[in-house]
């Protein structure tokens, strides 16, 4: 059952991503990206990352995508549907993207299996959880324990982004 739903969500997210980067209408692109985000949230659920799935839906699909939609509707994009939506160099871009397919084939066909098998042994000593805790409690302990300083720095990054967005998008009334 989990296998079937994983393959469904993998296929749907790949199709959504392809449509999102190739559709001419920007609003359609946003809606395909929304579909991609929701399917990736489903894969997070299969991977036991419930908190990450909730954050994905709330922050990505809720906040970030609405911000994109606001800007798409705020500024005028008249020639997006009529002009070429890909630059003339798009075959080069396709080659660069397809070079990742080689890496994907390596992961799929198994030369990296030894790498994946070697991983758990290396991580066994790093486990610090106490038994009986849920996944969210473990994330909370990690976030406010060893990751407390990066967590505070992330809030500073967000504050800088808020101030920067206001400064950039503000209309300059008094020119020197």
């Amino acid at each position: 059952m989990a296998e079937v739903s994983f393959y469904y969500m993998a296929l749907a997210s790949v199709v959504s991503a392809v449509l999102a980067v190739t559709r001419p209408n920007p609003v359609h692109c946003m809606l395909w990206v929304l579909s991609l985000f929701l399917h990736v949230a489903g894969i997070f659920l299969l991977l036991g990352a419930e908190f990450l799935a909730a954050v994905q839906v709330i922050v990505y699909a809720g906040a970030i995508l609405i911000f994109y939609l606001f800007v798409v509707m705020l500024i005028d994009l008249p020639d997006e549907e009529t002009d070429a939506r890909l630059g003339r160099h798009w075959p080069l871009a396709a080659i660069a993207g397809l070079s990742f397919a080689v890496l994907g084939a390596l992961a799929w066909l198994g030369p990296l299996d030894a790498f994946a098998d070697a991983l758990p042994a290396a991580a066994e000593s790093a486990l610090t959880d106490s038994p009986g805790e849920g996944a969210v409690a473990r994330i909370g302990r990690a976030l406010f324990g060893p990751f407390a300083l990066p967590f505070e720095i992330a809030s500073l990054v967000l504050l800088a982004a808020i101030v920067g967005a206001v400064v950039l998008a503000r209309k300059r009334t008094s020119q020197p």
Partner: protein
Amino acid sequence: MNVPLNEVLGLSVILFGIGMFGFLARRNLILMLISIEVMLNAVNLSLAAFSWHLDDPRGQVMALFVIAVAASEVAIGLGLVIALNRNKPGAAVEDLKGLRW
């Protein structure tokens, strides 16, 4: 619930390649930023897969940091798009040649 690590990593790589193609090929700044979101999602997917495979919450914590950085990147990037839109309507990258010599 047994999703093999290899297949999640393969999906992550495919999504990253699609996002990279979109970033390099699209001519619209907003859609280039959206392609960056696709790439960041692919990276989050691989972080979550490693976290699940290794039974270690630190991968998910890093994915949360990636989401926070993505949110700030969107705020700054779209602020720049709005500021550029004031000089010249539209969001085509070809219009940005003020720094070219």
